[in-house]
Protein backbone atom coordinates (compact mmCIF):
# COMPACT_ATOMS: atom_id res chain seq x y z
CA UNK A 1 0.00 0.00 0.00
CA UNK A 2 2.91 2.34 -0.47
CA UNK A 3 3.27 5.02 -3.04
CA UNK A 4 6.20 3.16 -4.55
CA UNK A 5 3.98 0.17 -5.24
CA UNK A 6 1.41 2.46 -6.79
CA UNK A 7 4.01 4.09 -8.98
CA UNK A 8 4.99 0.73 -10.46
CA UNK A 9 1.54 0.44 -12.01
CA UNK A 10 0.16 2.44 -14.90
CA UNK A 11 -1.10 5.89 -13.94
CA UNK A 12 -4.63 6.50 -12.77
CA UNK A 13 -5.60 8.00 -16.08
CA UNK A 14 -3.55 6.43 -18.80
CA UNK A 15 -5.47 7.42 -21.89
CA UNK A 16 -6.78 4.10 -23.15
CA UNK A 17 -10.18 4.02 -24.82
CA UNK A 18 -12.02 2.53 -21.87
CA UNK A 19 -10.62 5.04 -19.40
CA UNK A 20 -11.52 7.98 -21.62
CA UNK A 21 -15.04 6.58 -21.95
CA UNK A 22 -15.16 6.08 -18.17
CA UNK A 23 -14.23 9.70 -17.49
CA UNK A 24 -16.66 11.05 -20.09
CA UNK A 25 -19.56 8.97 -18.75
CA UNK A 26 -18.58 10.00 -15.24
CA UNK A 27 -18.71 13.69 -16.17
CA UNK A 28 -22.13 13.19 -17.79
CA UNK A 29 -23.37 11.33 -14.70
CA UNK A 30 -22.19 14.06 -12.33
CA UNK A 31 -23.77 16.67 -14.58
CA UNK A 32 -27.10 14.82 -14.59
CA UNK A 33 -26.92 14.41 -10.80
CA UNK A 34 -26.28 18.14 -10.37
CA UNK A 35 -29.25 19.02 -12.56
CA UNK A 36 -31.38 16.54 -10.58
CA UNK A 37 -30.83 18.44 -7.34
CA UNK A 38 -30.87 21.96 -8.78
CA UNK A 39 -33.72 21.96 -11.32
CA UNK A 40 -37.01 23.50 -10.26
CA UNK A 41 -39.06 21.20 -12.50
CA UNK A 42 -39.94 18.24 -10.33
CA UNK A 43 -40.60 15.62 -13.02
CA UNK A 44 -37.49 16.74 -14.90
CA UNK A 45 -35.52 16.10 -11.73
CA UNK A 46 -36.83 12.52 -11.63
CA UNK A 47 -35.94 12.01 -15.30
CA UNK A 48 -32.43 13.46 -14.83
CA UNK A 49 -32.12 10.98 -11.97
CA UNK A 50 -32.76 8.25 -14.57
CA UNK A 51 -29.85 9.62 -16.61
CA UNK A 52 -27.59 9.70 -13.54
CA UNK A 53 -28.50 6.15 -12.47
CA UNK A 54 -28.16 4.90 -16.05
CA UNK A 55 -24.75 6.55 -16.31
CA UNK A 56 -23.73 4.74 -13.14
CA UNK A 57 -24.82 1.46 -14.73
CA UNK A 58 -22.60 2.22 -17.74
CA UNK A 59 -19.69 2.88 -15.35
CA UNK A 60 -20.27 -0.54 -13.76
CA UNK A 61 -20.22 -2.09 -17.24
CA UNK A 62 -16.93 -0.35 -18.05
CA UNK A 63 -15.53 -1.76 -14.80
CA UNK A 64 -16.57 -5.27 -16.05
CA UNK A 65 -19.21 -5.62 -13.32
CA UNK A 66 -21.92 -6.71 -15.73
CA UNK A 67 -24.23 -8.30 -13.18
CA UNK A 68 -24.21 -5.23 -10.92
CA UNK A 69 -24.89 -3.02 -13.93
CA UNK A 70 -28.06 -4.89 -14.97
CA UNK A 71 -29.30 -5.08 -11.39
CA UNK A 72 -28.74 -1.32 -11.14
CA UNK A 73 -30.94 -0.79 -14.20
CA UNK A 74 -33.55 -3.30 -13.04
CA UNK A 75 -33.95 -1.94 -9.51
CA UNK A 76 -33.24 1.77 -9.78
CA UNK A 77 -34.25 2.78 -13.30
CA UNK A 78 -37.02 0.24 -13.76
CA UNK A 79 -38.61 0.29 -10.31
CA UNK A 80 -37.46 3.03 -7.94
CA UNK A 81 -37.74 5.87 -10.45
CA UNK A 82 -41.09 4.55 -11.68
CA UNK A 83 -42.38 4.64 -8.09
CA UNK A 84 -40.94 8.15 -7.73
CA UNK A 85 -42.79 9.28 -10.88
CA UNK A 86 -45.95 7.55 -9.62
CA UNK A 87 -45.67 9.55 -6.41
CA UNK A 88 -45.05 12.79 -8.34
CA UNK A 89 -48.12 12.18 -10.49
CA UNK A 90 -50.23 12.04 -7.34
CA UNK A 91 -49.03 15.52 -6.36
CA UNK A 92 -49.86 18.78 -8.08
CA UNK A 93 -46.45 18.95 -9.76
CA UNK A 94 -47.01 21.46 -12.57
CA UNK A 95 -45.54 21.34 -16.05
CA UNK A 96 -42.81 23.93 -15.84
CA UNK A 97 -41.17 25.39 -12.75
CA UNK A 98 -42.39 24.89 -9.20
CA UNK A 99 -41.46 28.20 -7.55
CA UNK A 100 -41.64 26.76 -4.03
CA UNK A 101 -39.43 23.74 -4.76
CA UNK A 102 -36.75 24.89 -2.34
CA UNK A 103 -36.32 23.42 1.11
CA UNK A 104 -33.81 26.24 1.98
CA UNK A 105 -31.35 23.61 3.12
CA UNK A 106 -29.14 24.18 0.10
CA UNK A 107 -25.91 24.90 1.96
CA UNK A 108 -26.38 22.22 4.62
CA UNK A 109 -27.12 19.66 1.87
CA UNK A 110 -24.03 20.76 -0.04
CA UNK A 111 -21.92 20.38 3.10
CA UNK A 112 -23.22 16.86 3.79
CA UNK A 113 -22.74 15.87 0.15
CA UNK A 114 -19.15 17.14 0.01
CA UNK A 115 -18.29 15.46 3.32
CA UNK A 116 -19.81 12.13 2.23
CA UNK A 117 -18.09 12.28 -1.15
CA UNK A 118 -14.74 13.14 0.45
CA UNK A 119 -15.03 10.27 2.93
CA UNK A 120 -15.96 7.77 0.21
CA UNK A 121 -13.24 8.89 -2.20
CA UNK A 122 -10.66 8.79 0.56
CA UNK A 123 -11.66 5.28 1.72
CA UNK A 124 -11.85 3.85 -1.80
CA UNK A 125 -8.58 5.40 -2.96
CA UNK A 126 -6.80 4.27 0.18
CA UNK A 127 -8.17 0.71 -0.03
CA UNK A 128 -7.76 0.07 -3.75
CA UNK A 129 -4.76 2.24 -4.57
CA UNK A 130 -2.74 -0.70 -5.86
CA UNK A 131 -5.53 -2.95 -7.14
CA UNK A 132 -5.81 -3.18 -10.89
CA UNK A 133 -8.48 -4.91 -12.94
CA UNK A 134 -7.03 -7.14 -15.62
CA UNK A 135 -9.35 -6.40 -18.52
CA UNK A 136 -7.86 -9.08 -20.77
CA UNK A 137 -8.60 -12.14 -18.63
CA UNK A 138 -12.00 -13.58 -17.68
CA UNK A 139 -14.43 -10.92 -16.44
CA UNK A 140 -14.14 -10.35 -12.68
CA UNK A 141 -17.65 -9.00 -12.29
CA UNK A 142 -19.44 -11.78 -14.15
CA UNK A 143 -22.57 -13.23 -12.60
CA UNK A 144 -20.76 -16.44 -11.67
CA UNK A 145 -17.94 -14.74 -9.78
CA UNK A 146 -20.28 -12.28 -8.08
CA UNK A 147 -22.64 -15.09 -7.07
CA UNK A 148 -19.91 -17.32 -5.71
CA UNK A 149 -18.36 -14.40 -3.84
CA UNK A 150 -21.69 -13.29 -2.41
CA UNK A 151 -22.90 -16.69 -1.24
CA UNK A 152 -19.57 -18.14 -0.08
CA UNK A 153 -17.78 -15.25 1.63
CA UNK A 154 -20.53 -12.73 2.32
CA UNK A 155 -23.54 -14.94 2.96
CA UNK A 156 -24.07 -13.76 6.55
CA UNK A 157 -24.26 -10.03 5.74
CA UNK A 158 -26.47 -10.96 2.78
CA UNK A 159 -28.92 -12.82 5.03
CA UNK A 160 -28.80 -10.03 7.63
CA UNK A 161 -29.72 -7.55 4.89
CA UNK A 162 -32.63 -9.69 3.75
CA UNK A 163 -33.95 -9.83 7.33
CA UNK A 164 -33.61 -6.04 7.51
CA UNK A 165 -35.62 -5.65 4.29
CA UNK A 166 -38.25 -8.07 5.57
CA UNK A 167 -38.55 -6.04 8.78
CA UNK A 168 -38.99 -2.87 6.71
CA UNK A 169 -41.68 -4.57 4.64
CA UNK A 170 -43.60 -5.73 7.71
CA UNK A 171 -43.19 -2.29 9.24
CA UNK A 172 -44.64 -0.62 6.15
CA UNK A 173 -47.67 -2.92 6.21
CA UNK A 174 -48.25 -2.32 9.92
CA UNK A 175 -48.03 1.46 9.49
CA UNK A 176 -50.42 1.56 6.54
CA UNK A 177 -52.99 -0.68 8.27
CA UNK A 178 -52.94 1.31 11.51
CA UNK A 179 -53.60 4.57 9.68
CA UNK A 180 -56.54 3.20 7.70
CA UNK A 181 -58.13 1.90 10.92
CA UNK A 182 -57.96 5.33 12.52
CA UNK A 183 -59.64 6.88 9.52
CA UNK A 184 -62.56 4.49 9.42
Amino acid sequence: MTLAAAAAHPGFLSPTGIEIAFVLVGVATIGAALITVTTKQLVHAALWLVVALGGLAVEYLLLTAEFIAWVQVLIYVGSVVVLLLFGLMLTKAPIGRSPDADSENRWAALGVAVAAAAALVWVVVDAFRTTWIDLDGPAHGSTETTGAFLFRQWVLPFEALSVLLLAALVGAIVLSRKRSKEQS
Partner: protein
Amino acid sequence: MNDVLDVALRLIIVFAVFMVVPLVVGQTEHKVMAHMQGRLGPMYAGGFHGWAQLVADGVKFAQKEDIVPAEADRRIFQLAPAVALLPYLLVLVAIPIGPSEGAVGQVVDAGIFFVLAVMGVGVLGSLMAGWASANKFSLLGGLRTAAQLLAYELPMLLAAASVAMAAGTVSLPGIVNAFEWWWLPWQIVGGLVFFVAGLAELQRPPFDMPIADSEIIFGAYTEYTGLRFALFLLAEYAGIVVLCGLTTVLFLGGWHGPLGADGLGWVWTLLKIAVLAFVVIWLRVSYPRLREDQLQRLAWTTLIPLALAQIALTGIVKVAIS
Protein backbone atom coordinates in the same frame (compact mmCIF):
# COMPACT_ATOMS: atom_id res chain seq x y z
CA MET B 1 -12.07 -5.19 -39.58
CA ASN B 2 -13.83 -8.54 -39.74
CA ASP B 3 -15.15 -8.04 -36.21
CA VAL B 4 -16.61 -4.66 -37.05
CA LEU B 5 -18.30 -6.12 -40.11
CA ASP B 6 -19.66 -9.02 -38.05
CA VAL B 7 -21.12 -6.72 -35.39
CA ALA B 8 -22.59 -4.38 -38.00
CA LEU B 9 -24.18 -7.28 -39.87
CA ARG B 10 -25.73 -8.70 -36.69
CA LEU B 11 -27.13 -5.31 -35.72
CA ILE B 12 -28.57 -4.79 -39.19
CA ILE B 13 -30.25 -8.21 -39.10
CA VAL B 14 -31.68 -7.60 -35.62
CA PHE B 15 -32.94 -4.20 -36.78
CA ALA B 16 -34.55 -5.77 -39.85
CA VAL B 17 -36.26 -8.38 -37.66
CA PHE B 18 -37.37 -5.57 -35.36
CA MET B 19 -38.94 -3.69 -38.25
CA VAL B 20 -40.61 -6.67 -39.96
CA VAL B 21 -41.78 -9.22 -37.37
CA PRO B 22 -43.91 -6.80 -35.27
CA LEU B 23 -45.68 -5.78 -38.49
CA VAL B 24 -46.36 -9.44 -39.29
CA VAL B 25 -47.83 -9.85 -35.81
CA GLY B 26 -49.92 -6.73 -36.37
CA GLN B 27 -51.29 -7.98 -39.68
CA THR B 28 -52.00 -11.38 -38.10
CA GLU B 29 -53.91 -9.58 -35.38
CA HIS B 30 -56.06 -7.81 -37.99
CA LYS B 31 -56.95 -11.08 -39.68
CA VAL B 32 -57.24 -13.35 -36.63
CA MET B 33 -59.44 -10.90 -34.74
CA ALA B 34 -61.60 -10.39 -37.81
CA HIS B 35 -62.16 -14.10 -38.38
CA MET B 36 -62.81 -14.81 -34.71
CA GLN B 37 -65.50 -12.13 -34.81
CA GLY B 38 -67.04 -13.48 -38.03
CA ARG B 39 -65.89 -10.71 -40.38
CA LEU B 40 -63.18 -10.35 -43.00
CA GLY B 41 -60.85 -7.62 -41.76
CA PRO B 42 -58.96 -5.33 -44.15
CA MET B 43 -59.21 -6.93 -47.61
CA TYR B 44 -58.31 -4.37 -50.29
CA ALA B 45 -54.85 -2.86 -49.71
CA GLY B 46 -52.27 -4.72 -51.80
CA GLY B 47 -54.70 -7.18 -53.38
CA PHE B 48 -54.37 -10.61 -51.79
CA HIS B 49 -56.36 -10.55 -48.50
CA GLY B 50 -55.24 -6.99 -47.80
CA TRP B 51 -51.65 -7.96 -47.04
CA ALA B 52 -50.40 -4.37 -47.47
CA GLN B 53 -52.82 -2.89 -44.94
CA LEU B 54 -50.12 -2.19 -42.35
CA VAL B 55 -47.85 -0.62 -44.97
CA ALA B 56 -50.75 1.61 -45.92
CA ASP B 57 -51.31 2.41 -42.23
CA GLY B 58 -47.64 3.32 -41.94
CA VAL B 59 -47.87 5.68 -44.93
CA LYS B 60 -50.98 7.23 -43.38
CA PHE B 61 -49.22 7.78 -40.04
CA ALA B 62 -46.20 9.31 -41.80
CA GLN B 63 -48.42 11.80 -43.63
CA LYS B 64 -50.28 13.00 -40.54
CA GLU B 65 -49.32 16.27 -38.92
CA ASP B 66 -47.16 15.90 -35.85
CA ILE B 67 -48.94 17.91 -33.16
CA VAL B 68 -47.55 18.84 -29.75
CA PRO B 69 -50.21 20.30 -27.42
CA ALA B 70 -49.56 23.93 -26.47
CA GLU B 71 -49.49 23.24 -22.73
CA ALA B 72 -47.37 20.08 -23.02
CA ASP B 73 -43.80 19.69 -21.86
CA ARG B 74 -42.42 19.70 -25.40
CA ARG B 75 -39.14 17.87 -25.09
CA ILE B 76 -40.37 15.07 -22.82
CA PHE B 77 -43.51 14.70 -24.93
CA GLN B 78 -41.38 14.22 -28.04
CA LEU B 79 -38.85 11.94 -26.36
CA ALA B 80 -41.39 9.54 -24.83
CA PRO B 81 -42.09 7.31 -27.90
CA ALA B 82 -38.36 6.62 -28.33
CA VAL B 83 -38.02 5.67 -24.65
CA ALA B 84 -40.97 3.31 -25.04
CA LEU B 85 -39.68 1.65 -28.23
CA LEU B 86 -35.88 1.39 -27.92
CA PRO B 87 -35.77 -1.04 -24.94
CA TYR B 88 -37.53 -3.71 -27.00
CA LEU B 89 -34.99 -3.29 -29.80
CA LEU B 90 -32.18 -3.75 -27.26
CA VAL B 91 -33.84 -6.83 -25.76
CA LEU B 92 -34.23 -8.42 -29.19
CA VAL B 93 -30.42 -8.36 -29.54
CA ALA B 94 -30.06 -10.86 -26.70
CA ILE B 95 -32.76 -13.42 -27.61
CA PRO B 96 -31.29 -16.56 -29.22
CA ILE B 97 -33.34 -18.33 -31.88
CA GLY B 98 -30.95 -21.18 -32.71
CA PRO B 99 -28.15 -23.18 -31.10
CA SER B 100 -25.30 -21.75 -33.19
CA GLU B 101 -23.20 -18.65 -32.50
CA GLY B 102 -24.79 -16.88 -35.44
CA ALA B 103 -28.38 -17.27 -34.23
CA VAL B 104 -28.24 -14.59 -31.54
CA GLY B 105 -27.49 -10.89 -31.91
CA GLN B 106 -25.12 -10.79 -28.96
CA VAL B 107 -24.57 -13.33 -26.20
CA VAL B 108 -25.03 -11.49 -22.91
CA ASP B 109 -23.50 -13.18 -19.88
CA ALA B 110 -26.29 -12.21 -17.48
CA GLY B 111 -28.96 -12.58 -20.15
CA ILE B 112 -32.08 -12.84 -17.97
CA PHE B 113 -31.10 -9.81 -15.94
CA PHE B 114 -30.27 -7.81 -19.04
CA VAL B 115 -33.57 -8.68 -20.69
CA LEU B 116 -35.80 -8.01 -17.68
CA ALA B 117 -33.91 -4.85 -16.71
CA VAL B 118 -34.07 -3.29 -20.15
CA MET B 119 -37.71 -4.29 -20.68
CA GLY B 120 -38.56 -2.53 -17.43
CA VAL B 121 -37.20 0.76 -18.79
CA GLY B 122 -39.92 0.84 -21.46
CA VAL B 123 -42.51 1.76 -18.82
CA LEU B 124 -40.78 5.12 -18.43
CA GLY B 125 -41.93 6.00 -21.95
CA SER B 126 -45.60 5.61 -21.02
CA LEU B 127 -45.08 7.54 -17.79
CA MET B 128 -43.31 10.39 -19.59
CA ALA B 129 -46.06 10.49 -22.22
CA GLY B 130 -48.76 10.44 -19.56
CA TRP B 131 -47.29 13.28 -17.58
CA ALA B 132 -45.98 15.51 -20.39
CA SER B 133 -49.23 15.56 -22.40
CA ALA B 134 -50.89 17.93 -19.89
CA ASN B 135 -54.12 16.00 -20.31
CA LYS B 136 -56.16 14.44 -17.54
CA PHE B 137 -56.84 11.25 -19.48
CA SER B 138 -53.14 10.91 -20.23
CA LEU B 139 -52.29 11.41 -16.57
CA LEU B 140 -54.81 8.74 -15.56
CA GLY B 141 -53.23 6.41 -18.11
CA GLY B 142 -49.78 7.13 -16.71
CA LEU B 143 -50.99 6.48 -13.16
CA ARG B 144 -52.52 3.19 -14.18
CA THR B 145 -49.31 2.22 -15.97
CA ALA B 146 -47.28 2.81 -12.83
CA ALA B 147 -49.83 1.02 -10.64
CA GLN B 148 -49.73 -1.92 -13.03
CA LEU B 149 -45.96 -2.16 -12.61
CA LEU B 150 -46.47 -2.94 -8.92
CA ALA B 151 -48.51 -5.97 -9.97
CA TYR B 152 -46.47 -7.62 -12.71
CA GLU B 153 -42.82 -6.87 -11.89
CA LEU B 154 -42.41 -9.24 -8.94
CA PRO B 155 -44.15 -12.39 -10.32
CA MET B 156 -42.26 -11.95 -13.60
CA LEU B 157 -38.88 -11.81 -11.84
CA LEU B 158 -39.73 -14.75 -9.56
CA ALA B 159 -40.86 -16.93 -12.47
CA ALA B 160 -37.69 -16.12 -14.40
CA ALA B 161 -35.60 -16.86 -11.30
CA SER B 162 -37.14 -20.35 -11.14
CA VAL B 163 -35.87 -21.19 -14.64
CA ALA B 164 -32.46 -19.76 -13.88
CA MET B 165 -32.31 -22.01 -10.81
CA ALA B 166 -33.35 -25.03 -12.86
CA ALA B 167 -30.74 -24.40 -15.53
CA GLY B 168 -28.01 -23.26 -13.15
CA THR B 169 -27.19 -20.29 -15.36
CA VAL B 170 -28.58 -16.85 -16.16
CA SER B 171 -27.45 -16.77 -19.78
CA LEU B 172 -30.30 -17.24 -22.26
CA PRO B 173 -28.51 -19.67 -24.65
CA GLY B 174 -27.24 -21.54 -21.57
CA ILE B 175 -30.80 -22.00 -20.30
CA VAL B 176 -32.03 -23.40 -23.60
CA ASN B 177 -28.98 -25.68 -23.83
CA ALA B 178 -29.80 -27.13 -20.41
CA PHE B 179 -33.45 -27.73 -21.37
CA GLU B 180 -34.88 -31.26 -21.22
CA TRP B 181 -38.38 -32.24 -22.30
CA TRP B 182 -39.56 -32.89 -18.71
CA TRP B 183 -38.88 -29.26 -17.84
CA LEU B 184 -42.15 -28.52 -19.60
CA PRO B 185 -44.40 -30.04 -16.88
CA TRP B 186 -41.85 -29.08 -14.20
CA GLN B 187 -41.82 -25.35 -15.04
CA ILE B 188 -45.33 -25.01 -16.48
CA VAL B 189 -46.66 -22.96 -13.53
CA GLY B 190 -43.75 -20.57 -13.73
CA GLY B 191 -44.28 -20.31 -17.47
CA LEU B 192 -47.95 -19.37 -17.06
CA VAL B 193 -47.12 -16.79 -14.38
CA PHE B 194 -44.41 -15.29 -16.60
CA PHE B 195 -46.71 -15.09 -19.60
CA VAL B 196 -49.60 -13.53 -17.67
CA ALA B 197 -47.30 -11.01 -15.97
CA GLY B 198 -45.79 -10.26 -19.38
CA LEU B 199 -49.24 -9.54 -20.81
CA ALA B 200 -49.76 -7.07 -17.98
CA GLU B 201 -46.41 -5.44 -18.78
CA LEU B 202 -47.37 -5.03 -22.44
CA GLN B 203 -50.75 -3.60 -21.43
CA ARG B 204 -52.48 -6.09 -23.67
CA PRO B 205 -56.06 -7.18 -23.04
CA PRO B 206 -57.27 -8.37 -20.55
CA PHE B 207 -54.80 -6.04 -18.81
CA ASP B 208 -55.17 -2.96 -21.03
CA MET B 209 -56.49 -0.66 -18.29
CA PRO B 210 -53.78 1.99 -18.92
CA ILE B 211 -55.00 2.52 -22.49
CA ALA B 212 -58.63 1.52 -21.96
CA ASP B 213 -60.19 3.29 -24.94
CA SER B 214 -63.76 3.12 -23.62
CA GLU B 215 -62.80 4.74 -20.29
CA ILE B 216 -59.85 7.11 -20.73
CA ILE B 217 -59.71 7.54 -24.54
CA PHE B 218 -56.23 6.13 -25.14
CA GLY B 219 -54.50 6.68 -21.82
CA ALA B 220 -51.02 8.10 -22.02
CA TYR B 221 -51.10 8.15 -25.83
CA THR B 222 -54.27 10.28 -26.14
CA GLU B 223 -52.48 13.42 -27.37
CA TYR B 224 -50.18 11.69 -29.84
CA THR B 225 -50.59 11.80 -33.60
CA GLY B 226 -48.77 10.65 -36.70
CA LEU B 227 -45.43 8.87 -36.48
CA ARG B 228 -45.03 9.29 -32.71
CA PHE B 229 -48.34 7.49 -32.16
CA ALA B 230 -47.23 4.81 -34.64
CA LEU B 231 -44.04 4.33 -32.61
CA PHE B 232 -46.11 3.57 -29.50
CA LEU B 233 -48.14 1.03 -31.48
CA LEU B 234 -44.92 -0.48 -32.84
CA ALA B 235 -43.62 -0.73 -29.27
CA GLU B 236 -46.71 -2.75 -28.34
CA TYR B 237 -46.21 -5.22 -31.19
CA ALA B 238 -42.46 -5.42 -30.65
CA GLY B 239 -43.32 -6.14 -27.03
CA ILE B 240 -45.48 -9.08 -28.11
CA VAL B 241 -42.58 -10.48 -30.13
CA VAL B 242 -40.16 -10.01 -27.22
CA LEU B 243 -42.52 -11.55 -24.63
CA CYS B 244 -43.30 -14.57 -26.82
CA GLY B 245 -39.60 -14.97 -27.64
CA LEU B 246 -38.66 -14.87 -23.98
CA THR B 247 -41.38 -17.31 -22.95
CA THR B 248 -40.21 -19.64 -25.71
CA VAL B 249 -36.57 -19.40 -24.68
CA LEU B 250 -37.16 -19.68 -20.94
CA PHE B 251 -40.02 -22.16 -20.66
CA LEU B 252 -40.68 -23.91 -23.97
CA GLY B 253 -37.16 -25.03 -24.81
CA GLY B 254 -36.41 -22.67 -27.69
CA TRP B 255 -34.90 -24.66 -30.53
CA HIS B 256 -35.53 -28.09 -28.96
CA GLY B 257 -38.20 -30.11 -30.74
CA PRO B 258 -39.16 -33.71 -31.47
CA LEU B 259 -37.04 -33.71 -34.65
CA GLY B 260 -34.60 -31.64 -36.64
CA ALA B 261 -32.69 -30.29 -33.63
CA ASP B 262 -29.45 -29.93 -35.60
CA GLY B 263 -30.03 -27.70 -38.57
CA LEU B 264 -33.62 -26.57 -38.23
CA GLY B 265 -33.77 -25.59 -34.55
CA TRP B 266 -34.57 -21.98 -35.40
CA VAL B 267 -37.76 -23.16 -37.15
CA TRP B 268 -38.97 -24.57 -33.82
CA THR B 269 -38.19 -21.29 -32.06
CA LEU B 270 -40.08 -19.25 -34.65
CA LEU B 271 -42.98 -21.71 -34.61
CA LYS B 272 -43.32 -21.50 -30.84
CA ILE B 273 -43.11 -17.70 -30.94
CA ALA B 274 -45.82 -17.64 -33.62
CA VAL B 275 -48.14 -19.89 -31.60
CA LEU B 276 -47.67 -17.74 -28.48
CA ALA B 277 -48.30 -14.56 -30.47
CA PHE B 278 -51.52 -16.16 -31.71
CA VAL B 279 -52.50 -16.86 -28.10
CA VAL B 280 -51.85 -13.20 -27.20
CA ILE B 281 -54.20 -12.12 -29.99
CA TRP B 282 -56.72 -14.81 -29.05
CA LEU B 283 -56.85 -13.54 -25.45
CA ARG B 284 -57.57 -10.04 -26.74
CA VAL B 285 -60.78 -11.13 -28.43
CA SER B 286 -61.94 -13.52 -25.72
CA TYR B 287 -61.55 -11.77 -22.36
CA PRO B 288 -63.09 -8.58 -20.95
CA ARG B 289 -60.83 -5.97 -19.42
CA LEU B 290 -59.97 -6.29 -15.74
CA ARG B 291 -60.00 -3.33 -13.38
CA GLU B 292 -56.69 -2.11 -11.95
CA ASP B 293 -57.53 -3.39 -8.45
CA GLN B 294 -58.56 -6.76 -9.88
CA LEU B 295 -55.13 -7.05 -11.49
CA GLN B 296 -53.47 -6.23 -8.14
CA ARG B 297 -55.59 -8.90 -6.46
CA LEU B 298 -54.73 -11.42 -9.17
CA ALA B 299 -51.03 -10.62 -8.93
CA TRP B 300 -50.63 -10.56 -5.16
CA THR B 301 -52.98 -13.39 -4.22
CA THR B 302 -52.45 -15.74 -7.17
CA LEU B 303 -49.40 -15.03 -9.32
CA ILE B 304 -46.86 -14.33 -6.58
CA PRO B 305 -47.81 -17.36 -4.39
CA LEU B 306 -47.75 -19.55 -7.52
CA ALA B 307 -44.34 -18.20 -8.51
CA LEU B 308 -43.00 -18.79 -4.99
CA ALA B 309 -44.41 -22.33 -5.01
CA GLN B 310 -42.74 -22.87 -8.37
CA ILE B 311 -39.39 -21.71 -6.94
CA ALA B 312 -39.80 -24.10 -3.99
CA LEU B 313 -40.65 -26.96 -6.37
CA THR B 314 -37.69 -26.11 -8.58
CA GLY B 315 -35.38 -26.10 -5.57
CA ILE B 316 -36.68 -29.44 -4.24
CA VAL B 317 -36.41 -31.22 -7.61
CA LYS B 318 -33.02 -29.65 -8.26
CA VAL B 319 -31.66 -30.95 -4.94
CA ALA B 320 -33.33 -34.35 -5.41
CA ILE B 321 -31.77 -35.03 -8.81
CA SER B 322 -28.28 -33.72 -8.04
